[in-house]
């Protein structure tokens, strides 16, 4: 990665007594597609608006391309933003929506037409240039909003959940186009979403945000493989993360349903939280030593995979199993502890053992489960 395009240092913001962003540091590099991922209310949109200059941080500095812009007003920052509901100018044609910002930025009139044509061709909206926004479909409006940002040729793109108002099919297509487009244009992009699939697929790097703080920053697969906190593991898990109470004792983790090898994770011993991703949990149809028999309660077919819900009196576990793998019948299953992979967290939710710092594993097989997880394959 090259030069730092955007640097945030100690950014904090409160609405009244409610701290929304709590002392946050972040560096984004030139040309990078950076995704801020977090649940609603975690402060990610607030952070984006502060970067845009639409709201002021209570403390901290924002530097854009090496120069401090903390007190520079939004209109002078040369940033373009795509809003969640697009915020197209309803009384202007698509052409004027694109041209307006250029005129206000005093781009010479003879260049405006050419730039609009080029962007319109890029986004396949040439036929829509003389329409008004209310005559466009959601997907078309989204393209125009994107075009309005691109045509400005800004230093930085900000995107606030730009795909969330599209239906599933259009969203998947647009997602792929967006990534390709960003790589082609090479403009640094800060993208906010609560959708983990969007974050995983789009990001060069991502940050998981919770309660106004960054839980973890890294490349999508690294964050996925080695979640730094229980929150990250839970947020990047679909369906939900299996969570068990456990105890480390002599190279093993003892839980109510099975005894797992710690896989090198060493700790002082004592109570831990055990997280097992559904795709990394293995069931065996045959009894396994140290494992409790579980009742298969529900099998949900997803297509290429099925979700197997298995219960014991005190809880339920979910495994995501490839259809070509061995399907358990309704009946009893046991946890194949040796083939499953787990993440261990302390009482505060911090990872125990291998840290995200050594995120690049020398041998990927070491941390991959026997069956390649779907999310990793899709990414």
């Amino acid at each position: 990665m090259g030069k730092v395009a955007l640097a945030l240092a100690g950014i904090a913001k409160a609405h009244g007594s409610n701290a929304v962003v709590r002392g946050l540091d972040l560096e984004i590099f030139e040309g990078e597609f950076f995704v801020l991922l977090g649940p609603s209310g975690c402060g990610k949109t607030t952070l984006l608006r502060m970067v845009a200059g639409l709201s002021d941080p209570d403390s901290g500095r924002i530097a854009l391309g090496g120069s401090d812009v903390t007190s520079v007003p939004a209109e002078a920052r040369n940033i373009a933003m795509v809003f969640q509901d697009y915020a197209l100018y309803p009384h202007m044609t698509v052409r004027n929506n694109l041209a307006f910002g250029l005129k206000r930025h005093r781009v010479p009139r003879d260049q405006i037409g050419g730039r609009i044509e080029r962007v319109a061709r890029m986004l396949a909206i040439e036929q829509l240039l003389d329409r008004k926004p209310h005559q466009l479909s959601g997907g078309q409006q989204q393209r125009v909003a994107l075009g309005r940002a691109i045509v400005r040729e800004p230093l930085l793109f900000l995107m606030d959940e730009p795909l969330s108002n599209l239906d599933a099919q259009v969203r998947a297509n647009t997602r792929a186009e967006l990534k390709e487009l960003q790589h082609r244009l090479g403009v640094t992009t800060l993208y906010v979403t609560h959708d983990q699939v969007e974050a995983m697929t789009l990001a060069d790097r991502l940050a998981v945000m919770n309660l106004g703080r960054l839980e973890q920053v890294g490349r999508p697969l690294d964050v996925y493989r080695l979640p730094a906190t229980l929150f990250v593991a839970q947020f990047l898990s679909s369906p939900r993360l299996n969570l068990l109470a456990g105890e480390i004792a002599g190279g093993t983790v003892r839980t109510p349903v099975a005894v797992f090898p710690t896989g090198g994770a060493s700790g002082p011993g004592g109570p831990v939280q055990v997280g097992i991703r559904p795709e990394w949990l293995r069931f065996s149809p045959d009894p396994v030593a140290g494992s409790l028999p579980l009742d298969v309660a529900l099998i949900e077919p997803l297509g290429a995979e099925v979700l197997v819900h298995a219960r014991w009196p005190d809880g339920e576990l979910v495994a995501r199993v490839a259809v070509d793998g061995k399907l358990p019948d309704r009946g009893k299953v046991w946890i194949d502890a040796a083939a499953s992979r787990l993440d261990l967290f302390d009482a505060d939710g911090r990872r125990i053992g291998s840290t995200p710092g050594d995120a690049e594993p020398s041998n990927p097989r070491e941390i991959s489960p026997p069956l390649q997880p779907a999310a990793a394959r899709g990414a």
Partner: protein
Amino acid sequence: MKRVVGRILLYAAVLIAAALVAMPMYWLVVSALKPSSEIFTATPRWLPGRIEWRNFVNAWEGAAFGRYFINSVGVTAAILFLQLVTSSLAAFALARRRFVGRGFILFAVIGALIIPIQVTFLANFITLQHFGWLDSYGALIAPFAASAFGTFLLRQAFLAVPDAIEDAARLDRCTGLAFLWHFLLPLARPTVVAFVLVALVAHWNDYFWPLIVTNRDQIRTLPIGLAMFVSQEVTTDWNLLMAATLFVAGPVLIVFFLTQRYFIRSHVNAGLKR
């Protein structure tokens, strides 16, 4: 069958209502075109036996209607222009900016909306007297340079513009008054047109205030001129009076006719999410 009968009844009711509204207007036009001999007849004549165009010429020459007309156009145009400027600026601040005392000012605007205009006449008259503006165009225009009604109406329309539009405009380097000009006013156009029409009718037809503050014939407006015409010239020439009335009512009718689609749309929009 039931539906057909319902339709017929509905149309009949609408036609009667329309006739009731149109009748005085029709009678005004027809009377203005009749010779004086046809004004009073035993049975009402729905059409003039002979069209008397001379009525308009005689009425026009009967008083300084040319002068009144110019005065009315000038005074009304100045009032509308000033009201649009002051109302849109005030509405912009009240709708889209946060500042200390905003709630109180809004309350004051709504309060001014409730107070009948006649209550302010005495204070305005004394103020203008101190300025030495009585019997001048300033006296006709200045008291109406701001409008609580316009401010409140435009504020409501400006509030309806989503904040995200303002954010987007800001990143496109369009802020402050440029945002008012390029976004708020165009987006509130139906409301602006409706306000202009209401204010136009009110000030074009205004009689009481111009009567109080004017003495010279040269600065009088049409409604005053018409009243003078009635009392001085043509107490019995009803056809000339009707022709003169058309000078006053005609321009407003024409403007309303040309802009009615905006007017109706604005009333429809008032109840709908845009």
